[in-house]
């Protein structure tokens, strides 16, 4: 206790209206330390870091850096004090090169052309060399995959002289290989005396790279632990909380949510089963929004009650695949049939009638009517069917009744069926979308990143609902960037790379590293293609 820690936040309070997002949270991060900030969605991790980075202003509390009390009112202040942050969404200029993106907003000594820019380029090359953040400094941003773009963001922070680096859920879109490389870089940084704060909800990651971890729940700090004195089960127990009496070992779903699922071994109790044929896709060809053929000659069979999971890095045709399977995006050629009913070339409404339900990735943009009530949101899609109408007009009384039932059955946290969907939290919005999807009595359910950003309770709920419809014979397609999720819930895992099959595995015989190689377009050596 002789020297002050690199960073010290004391009793930080932040409220949003009536909501207490941070309840007197304290945090200490030493030099040469990777500090994990762990907790479920809405625990307050990102809010706390946004306070540190000057994006939010705390109501009370103090921040000290190297023992000196500081006031941070904007990201500019934070950067000057050596705090850098890499957000989940990157703010980059797509048409600029890596160097231009990194120097954007800084002053170049020696002018903005020639000497100044080449000095900057040299510094960037040095940073990327030192920390293993390999990037071509002259590459144009829009040509780079997400993993590299993230490196650029990290370089950006280091270029500005960050000595405390905050990373917000950095592994969401990365392959296992990229995650390993990132963690190696982080270890190098702390070895050089920096501090890193890693926001995550995955226990496995914190155990892999952190020296210390602080667990948060409901806007409060629960506990800070040393890596040496804890293990996965212990952390999971703290994270989930012990409000329900004694702690029980996490279920498979919780293990997935927490990222503690054992890998490469049998997960859960999925027996080798054969499925009755259900959905059949033949020679499907689909274009993206820019009229580029992204998926060509795609074949897929999904049995009744089978869950097929697609693993892949975002931007490899997931959106196009999901929308084509859901009848939202027209096929250029090929066919999709359910029980010999040909659906391709029909209007979306007819797909819905045939029992195709879609849970889109972007809940706000594609999923809900934000300023309408839950009743209206649940009605959407079945508003033309005879069962919601009386004398030709929509029977709102019955619709409200059904909404009330859905609120209870799906445990949607809302005051009434009239609560606006846009006012709900992410998890509750997803429950509304699921309630609507299941109201169609689906024969084919297409889910895209169904649990992204959800807390453990909601994640578990989603998995339970998927199990329930498969038990009723529904074919399910799960497209997810969360590899753990795909492996744990799917009967079959298909790697998706540039819009095509890049390998297929039974879920009880997978090697995540092999999947990782395939979904980045590498190696076809060993594979367990079935």
């Amino acid at each position, binding site marked *: 206790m002789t020297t002050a820690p690199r960073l010290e936040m004391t009793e930080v309070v932040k409220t949003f209206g009536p909501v207490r997002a941070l309840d007197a949270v304290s945090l200490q991060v030493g030099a040469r330390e990777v500090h994990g900030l762990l907790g479920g969605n809405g625990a307050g991790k990102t809010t706390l870091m946004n306070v540190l980075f000057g994006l939010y202003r705390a109501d009370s509390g103090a921040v000290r850096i190297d023992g000196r009390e500081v006031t941070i009112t904007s990201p500019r202040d934070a950067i000057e004090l050596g705090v850098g942050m890499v957000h989940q969404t990157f703010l980059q200029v797509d048409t600029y090169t890596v160097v231009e993106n990194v120097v954007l907003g800084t002053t170049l000594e020696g002018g903005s052309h020639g000497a100044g820019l080449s000095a900057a380029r040299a510094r960037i090359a040095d940073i990327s060399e030192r920390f293993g953040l390999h990037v071509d400094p002259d590459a144009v941003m829009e040509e780079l995959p997400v993993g590299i773009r993230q490196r650029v963001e990290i370089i950006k922070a280091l270029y500005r002289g960050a000595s405390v680096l905050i990373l917000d859920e950095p592994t969401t879109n990365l392959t296992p290989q990229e995650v390993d490389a990132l963690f190696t870089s982080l270890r190098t940084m702390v070895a050089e005396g920096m501090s890193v704060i890693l926001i995550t909800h995955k226990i496995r990651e914190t155990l892999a790279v952190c020296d210390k971890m602080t667990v948060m729940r409901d806007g409060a700090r629960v506990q800070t632990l040393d890596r040496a004195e804890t293990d996965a089960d212990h952390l999971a127990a703290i994270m989930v909380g012990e409000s329900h009496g004694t702690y029980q070992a996490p279920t498979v779903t919780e293990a997935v949510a927490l990222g503690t699922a054992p890998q490469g071994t049998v997960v859960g109790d999925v027996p080798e089963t054969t499925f009755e044929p259900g959905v059949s896709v033949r020679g499907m060809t689909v274009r993206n929004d820019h009229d580029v053929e992204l998926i060509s000659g795609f074949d897929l069979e999904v049995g009744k009650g089978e869950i097929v999971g697609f693993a892949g*890095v*975002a931007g490899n045709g997931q959106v196009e695949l999901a929308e084509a399977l859901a009848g*939202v995006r027209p096929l250029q050629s090929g066919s999709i049939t359910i029980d010999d009913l040909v659906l391709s070339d029909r209007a979306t409404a007819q797909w819905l009638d045939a029992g195709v339900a879609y849970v889109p990735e972007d809940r706000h943009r594609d999923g809900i009517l934000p300023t309408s009530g839950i009743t209206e949101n649940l009605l959407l899609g079945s508003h033309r069917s005879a069962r919601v*109408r009386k004398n030709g007009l929509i029977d709102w009384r019955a619709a409200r009744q059904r909404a009330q039932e859905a609120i209870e059955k799906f445990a949607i946290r809302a005051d009434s069926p009239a609560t606006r969907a846009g006012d709900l939290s992410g998890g509750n919005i997803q429950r509304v979308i699921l309630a609507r999807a299941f109201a169609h009595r689906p024969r084919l359910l297409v889910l895209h990143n169904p649990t992204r950003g959800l807390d453990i309770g909601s994640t578990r709920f989603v998995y339970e609902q998927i199990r329930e419809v498969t038990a009723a014979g529904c074919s399910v397609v799960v497209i997810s960037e969360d590899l753990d999720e795909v492996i744990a819930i799917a009967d079959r895992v298909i790697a998706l790379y540039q819009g095509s099959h890049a390998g297929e595995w039974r879920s009880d015989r997978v090697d995540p590293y092999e999947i990782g190689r395939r979904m980045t377009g590498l190696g076809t050596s060993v594979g367990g293609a079935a």
Partner: protein
Amino acid sequence: MSTVEQTPPTPGSGGPPSAPAPREHGSGAVTGVAWTVLPYVASVVLAFLVGGLLIQAMGYSAVDALEAVLTSSFDSRFGMVETLHKWVPIVLCAYAFAIPLATGKFNIGAEGQLLLGATGGAAIGITFSDLPAILLLPAMLVAGVLAGALWAGIAAVLLVRFRVNEVLSTVLLNFVSFRLIDWVATSVWPDAGAGHPATTPVGDGARLPLIGEAPGLHSGVLLVLALAVFIAVGMRFTPTGFEMRAVGDNPRASLINGVKTSRLAGAGLVIGGGAAGLAGAIDVAGVQGRMLEGMQSNFLILGIIVGLMARGSMLALPFIAFGIAVLEFGAGTMQLVASVPVEMVLVIEALILLFLLLSDIVRNRLRGAA
């Protein structure tokens, strides 16, 4: 290849993204209604206060002026009839704006559509002037609706087929319509004796029957009243009305859930154009007896004001339109009694709308602080 994840702006949801859903406070039907009505009352009061100050500052008597504005509709049968006659085009032009707005489209072409409707109606009324009213009157009104719908239909086709922005096309079509009716009023059926570009009068069978003692109320008012009920019910209870509101709320989510969004947006424009066209035909059949230049008055802007004030409620819209009709009729009396220029009323109307829009911000602040 790779796309940066973009968090789309979540329409209607305020507050920081990581904050949990705001807890609903003091719910209950009574407070709900109060929260809805209060901003209207406050906006009207404030607008009159500011308007009164302006009038006073200009050297007139604010009390006399505002009294004239507010009471003249109600202190004579003539006042009430004239107010209702003004209400008809205002409410129809408000529909012309609000129905496309429900699907997220802006129809700024109500005056052109009204003029085309008037022309269509007058064309039938003049050409078949010998027909009995039972045939001529419906034919004329239908012609007005069709002409207005067709005019808006140009913008709708441009929008759906070629993605031409509807604001642009509807505004520009207004200018085309001015030239068109100028030609009709001066070359096709000119009335040389009118002293103003106008067509010859329509046949007697094309005049809406008047109700009650003189000055009579034309029966178009009843027709529009019935239409108002029909529209309110249709928007609320028919699948198409629901789809329109859904598309206005979130077109992507509607599309994914089986709504044919672009077709619906086009349909909204066409229906809106039909409403404005009806306004023109009724004005010919009930008030003017002919088509004349300038009959579009300022109904476009009044329709937009009413449509915005209604905030998507087809139930509230006719009532708000009535309030505006009262102000519009009162404006003339105000000029007579207090010599305040009629434009002052437009200032007050604009102020009401401004305060109403401001009240959203105030209300959100208050809710945030509660």
